[in-house]
């Protein structure tokens, strides 16, 4: 978003129509905001009515410029409260979801969809938000069923692609004993594949979003124990990402693909391919902790443990916020892979000490409990 979207001059006409706030969820200065509006996924965009501090529009996920323009129009529309009853219900559901009241939000999203006029311009967003909220609630079966039922109405749109792939992820999470699982996975994999193969849909999606479709399709092939199919898709994915990165106009845009490419290279067991791009990003963004944190993962996968630890030291020096705990975890894994049990234990102890310094809004109680459990299970 920051590399490709917010810099686009086409958004200039919106500049005076909103007050714009950027919230880095890792920054401790935002603890009070995050307590009021818990953010379960990144990025999340909100439009807030400042009079009641009520959220009138919420969208979890990235967007292209065209998608953002529609979200801004929707947000303005909701702020002026000029919509149909379906619009009002959608706005209420977004507000409930923004307060973390997910079970209530699900009911109101369902009402909004039931009340929708024919050709409702917000059906796509409402369905995306509903499947996402069900996923958060771990209602995998309902999420997948809803996605399967509504996909035909959204076919040919980016929302349709997102609903199909979120639905597919939900279907894969359904308990293996559940009789409905197989048919939901099969149908939603076909739907996701259809969106993925549709050039009209792809033309409207960001590279980041297309990468998300690969992710869901690869998981489905792996779930079907089709190793050859999964490998072919992973190779295709890596080639797609390399092409996207090669056509990026700025270092910022190129670096957007670092995380996806690293995932693809790790999955293909070719972590060495990640090194040149990460070294380049480290040069381009010397203050960013992501390149060294990712280098630590790549070196670890290559068995170059000392290089991995050196990169991890650099990343820890630059990192802040809850994200730093992930870097400690990787560091502990590196020590463990190296056979240094004491180093691994010490690192988890350091992670716990660090986590205790974070504001509670970051969900640190659960994190600390998970780290303590990990520590208890570690060999002395």
């Amino acid at each position, binding site marked *: *978003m*920051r*590399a490709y979207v*917010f*810099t686009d*001059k086409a*958004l*200039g006409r919106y*500049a005076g*129509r*909103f*007050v*714009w*706030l*950027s*919230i*880095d*969820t*890792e920054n401790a*200065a935002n603890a009070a*905001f995050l307590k009021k*509006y818990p*953010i*379960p*996924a*990144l*990025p*999340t*965009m909100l*439009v*807030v*009515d*400042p009079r009641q501090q009520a959220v009138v529009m919420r969208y*979890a*996920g*990235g967007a292209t410029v065209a998608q953002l323009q529609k979200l*801004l129009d929707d*947000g303005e529309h909701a*702020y002026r409260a000029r919509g149909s009853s379906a619009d009002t219900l959608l706005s209420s559901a977004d507000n409930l979801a923004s307060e973390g009241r997910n079970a209530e939000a699900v009911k109101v999203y369902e009402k909004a969809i039931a009340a929708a006029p024919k050709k409702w311009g917000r059906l796509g967003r409402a369905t*995306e938000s509903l499947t996402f909220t069900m996923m958060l609630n771990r209602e995998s079966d309902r999420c997948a069923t809803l996605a399967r039922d509504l996909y035909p109405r959204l076919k040919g749109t980016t929302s349709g692609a997102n609903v199909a792939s979120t639905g597919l992820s939900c279907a894969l999470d359904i308990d293996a004993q559940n009789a409905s699982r197989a048919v939901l996975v099969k149908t939603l994999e076909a739907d996701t594949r259809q969106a993925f193969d549709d050039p009209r849909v792809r033309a409207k999606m960001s590279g*980041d979003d297309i*990468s998300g479709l690969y992710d869901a399709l690869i998981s489905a092939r792996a779930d079907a124990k089709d190793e050859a199919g999964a490998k072919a898709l992973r190779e295709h994915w890596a080639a797609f990402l390399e092409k996207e990165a090669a056509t990026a106009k700025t270092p*910022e845009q190129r*670096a*957007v693909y670092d*995380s996806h490419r*690293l995932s693809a290279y*790790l999955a293909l067991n070719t972590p060495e391919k990640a090194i040149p791009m990460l070294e380049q*990003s480290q040069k381009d*963004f010397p*203050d*960013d902790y*992501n390149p060294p944190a990712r280098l630590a*993962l790549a070196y670890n996968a290559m068995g170059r443990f000392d290089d991995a630890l050196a990169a991890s030291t650099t990343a820890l020096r630059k990192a802040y916020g*809850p*994200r730093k705990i*992930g870097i400690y*975890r*990787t560091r502990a894994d590196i020590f463990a892979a190296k056979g240094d049990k004491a180093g691994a234990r010490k690192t988890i102890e350091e992670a716990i000490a660090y986590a205790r310094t974070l504001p509670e809004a970051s*969900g640190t109680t659960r994190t600390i409990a998970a780290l303590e459990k990990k520590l208890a299970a570690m060999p002395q």
Partner: protein
Amino acid sequence: MKFRMIALAILLAGTAAIASARQVLPFVENDYTRALARAKADNLPLFVDAWAPW
């Protein structure tokens, strides 16, 4: 709407941190109180981009 689950996204997720990418839209950085006061005073809706350097 490719999103990243905060609980799951440890190291692999995300987009790079870019502080300079804000010329077109005048973002207030990390100050809800100030942005909210301005939105009230100007009678405008408040747009929030919640992100992290992932």
